[in-house]
């Protein structure tokens, strides 16, 4: 029996995971469709050009990586993990070497997790919000649209629905929401103060700081959706010192609204939500774990990759690379971004699984060149609301990428890891 459907074609450059019609997949990747896609395509192709120079003997590379791992008793597995297949492999690797596991940019995801683990959540998925919401509150700044440029189109169902745009939005961003069909009122305000302002607005509608139109919208709403991106809260410019508490306050406000009307949070995640989800079903925890003999141990404030690197970076300097207790980092990356500076500067033995060749030239560094996931291989990704796991065919043909170096096609991250573990 055959499958009773076609296979979707996706853009996997941001967590909106837009479906591509045939004409959208043209090789020029014009900005007309999506600025993020245009930008990411440049990154992918430049990474590909840089990495196309050397040829790697995969047996030698695996041997060298295995030596590093064998000499270490303190392994950190970190990186940028976007798809389920890479997440599974990274977990397997950390388990095999009793390592610590935390994504490099895990703050945004973990802030929300910690708030939810304390108090719970009322949430709504994208399609539901699109269909049911009669009043949107969108919190953030231009950064949200840089991260997910087509979010206004994705949230609009064509009806003119009221939207309160709170935070720091420029005129072009406000226009983007309006163009998508929303009846927008911009409320410039400090991000930090928004949960308090919303609570105050509900308690004392008559004393609201903003105009009466806003008060009327809030008052008449039957289904309210509050949208924000976890990543934006981490921007220093937003000056939110206790992000967990900020999220808790907002979730509490949404929970209170549900006593009377229906309301939900739409917390927009990056593609790294895929790691969080996979790690949760495989280990019981969303990340920030260390594998011990009896299983995974979860310490969300302690097992933090950035802290581990900062701690080890100093102590590692000057030590003999062959010392068995020496720490090592396995950088697992299914993006084409470059290595973050702290990793480069850490001075600890490093195994890099990434499509991009590290600029670092260090005797204790091994690079295992990987295929670009979502481009050269089909993988499964979570949409930013984490309600949908999708798997699409490659959005572009491999012929549109710079030539693969002689020596053959590249392995996927999980294939490299399978080889690393096999020994």
């Amino acid at each position, binding site marked *: 029996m055959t499958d009773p459907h076609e296979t979707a074609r996706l853009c996997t450059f941001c967590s909106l995971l837009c479906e591509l019609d045939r004409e959208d997949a043209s090789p020029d990747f014009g900005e007309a469709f999506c600025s993020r896609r245009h930008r990411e395509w440049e990154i992918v192709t430049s990474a590909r050009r840089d990495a196309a120079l050397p040829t790697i003997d995969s047996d030698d590379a695996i041997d060298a990586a295995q030596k590093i791992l064998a000499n270490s008793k303190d392994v950190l597995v970190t990186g940028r993990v976007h798809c389920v297949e890479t997440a599974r492999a990274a977990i397997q690797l950390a388990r095999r070497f009793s390592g610590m596991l935390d994504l490099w940019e895990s703050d945004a995801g973990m802030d929300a997790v910690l708030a939810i683990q304390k108090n719970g959540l009322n949430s709504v998925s994208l399609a539901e919000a699109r269909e049911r919401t009669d009043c949107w509150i969108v919190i953030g700044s231009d950064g949200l649209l840089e991260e997910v440029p087509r979010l206004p189109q994705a949230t609009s169902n064509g009806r003119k629905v009221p939207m309160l745009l709170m935070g720091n939005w420029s005129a072009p961003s406000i226009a983007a929401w309006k163009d998508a069909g929303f009846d927008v009122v911009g409320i410039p305000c400090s991000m930090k103060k928004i949960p308090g302002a919303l609570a105050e607005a509900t308690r004392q509608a008559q004393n609201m700081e903003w105009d009466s139109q806003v008060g009327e919208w809030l008052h008449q709403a039957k289904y309210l959706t509050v949208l924000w991106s976890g990543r934006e809260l981490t921007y220093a410019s937003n000056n939110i010192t206790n992000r967990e508490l900020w999220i808790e306050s907002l979730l509490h406000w949404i929970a209170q609204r549900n006593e009377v009307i229906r309301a939900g949070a739409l917390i927009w995640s990056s593609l790294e939500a895929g790691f969080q989800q996979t790690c949760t079903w495989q280990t019981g925890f969303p990340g920030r774990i260390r594998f011990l003999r009896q299983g995974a141990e979860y310490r969300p404030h302690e097992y933090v990759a950035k802290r581990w690197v900062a701690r080890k970076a100093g102590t590692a300097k000057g030590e003999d690379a062959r010392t068995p207790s020496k720490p090592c980092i396995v950088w697992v990356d299914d993006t084409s971004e470059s290595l973050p500076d702290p990793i480069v500067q850490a001075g600890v033995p490093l195994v890099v699984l990434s499509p991009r060749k590290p600029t670092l030239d260090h005797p204790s560094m091994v690079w295992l060149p990987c295929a670009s996931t979502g481009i050269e291989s089909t993988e499964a990704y979570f949409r930013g609301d984490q309600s949908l796991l*999708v798997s699409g065919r490659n959005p572009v043909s491999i012929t549109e990428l710079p030539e693969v170096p002689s020596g053959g096609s590249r392995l996927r991250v999980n294939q490299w890891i399978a080889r690393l573990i096999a020994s």
Partner: protein
Amino acid sequence: MITLLKDIKLVDGYGVKTDRDAIYLVDDRIETVLPPGTVVDAEYSLPGHLVMPGGIDLHTHIGGGKVNIARLLLPERPARDAIQELHDRKPWLEPLSCPVPNTWETGQRYLQMGYTACFEPAMLAANARQSHAEMQDTPWLDTGAYVLLGNDRMLLDMLARAVPQSQIEEYIGWMIAAHAACGVKVVNPGGIDAFKFNQRSMNFDDLHPHFGISPRHILQCLARATDSIGLAHPLHVHCSNLGIPGNIATTLATIDAVEGSRLHLTHAQYHCYGNEGPHGFSSGAALLAERVNRSDRLTIDVGQVLFGQTVTLSADTMHQYANRKLASPRKTIFQDLECQAGCGVLPFRYRQSQYVHGLQWTIGLELFLRVVDPFKVFLTTDHPNGGPFTGYPHLIRLLMDYDFRMSIFERLHPDVKGTSSLPSLKREYRLDEIAAVTRSGPARALGLVQRGTLAEGSLADVVVYREDRNAETMFASPSMVFRRGDLVMRNGVCLDDCPKATILATLRDRDRIAGWGRSKAHRTSWKERYGYSPDLTAMRLDELRGEGRDVEWNASHE
């Protein structure tokens, strides 16, 4: 590979095989005789043991959005010392690390009890790929899932527009096939969606505030469709008014409404409450059991409550939300999902001393004991809602041992003891009846003709138990489990991983069904509703295959 198990008692739901005391596992099949001169690779003489087919849990929440959300919500772990202390005394009492354990622990603990196939009962179409991904990561178990319909706006809209039943059946068939399901479940028909319109309760004949259709209408349509498209498993129904005193009337109305169609009522314990007695909450188990006994088209699984900490999770947001203040610890998650359903997660502790919880415990047991034919009632706790699946051996002992049952009954709230008819039910389950409620019955209800039986040619998924007067000890710690003829568990130690299958529904007229997803009009209306094409959530069969995985088709309903 040929394995001989000899000097052993053979028991399945069809009886104890008094004429045989040996069984051959030839590759992945059971054989009773071999050609003369055949060399056996492994031979086990097992006096004092019995063999049963692998256990089948037809309703256990093991994969998908709400399951993972529950894991996320509950990172707390019991102290290691406490676990070790229990482990030293009785290994089977070792608590799960979490009421909703990770996938590996789920597979391991089920296998250690002799279960070989489990079914996720509430898979959202939008969430199908995640559900299957989690189940694929659950080792040792074959898995399947029922797709959740009856609150999806595509269907509600079709019903509101009075679209012909044949078109609705194409849609339902497509939803099953495209999301790799083996059944259809409906949860609080229309009620989850009504809650999104801020309606806080919905009776069986109430109208949906937007679509103007009733739960009765939705249920009738789905039950007819399930039979018509040839699904082996009848419509899997979570009735309206879950947990509400007096809901037995709704449950009986539900049964009456689909007279002529097959029906499976799930976690029936939560749906047979009267509103009499000192607390306005009483048992309706006798009424429901009487209906089940009378019908040849009706089956139930119980959803037995077991005392202790757990977490309740359900697509029935309406009723989960109504119970939010009962959460323990006090944190809950509610989600409105993709115009298809919802999700409510609520940690919960069932207490012996609490009147309602005690009565729920007796109602579940009443159902088991009052339904005469064990092929019509299946053993579940609706894991984790009534309690974790690791409580099954304890539950089996409750069914097989009247004195043990009464020893727990005596500890309940005085008003439970004063009103419950449980003491008068002296029935004790026999081994073949246990085999029926835990494997043979579920296999038959799911159209798995090669499972749940020790007959010649059946699947060589078998379990060896050491006979013990204490049924809890016996069923908690089988000596051996074979999957596809290979030994995969011995004395609690899980050996090699083994091939897994995803069980899929065989549908009549698959070509017609496939046409639904290809129709331009349907694709347009889907895209307008969800913002993406139906291809986005649909799964390819090759996603379910590979690396020791395959698909298995059940028998079609004729």
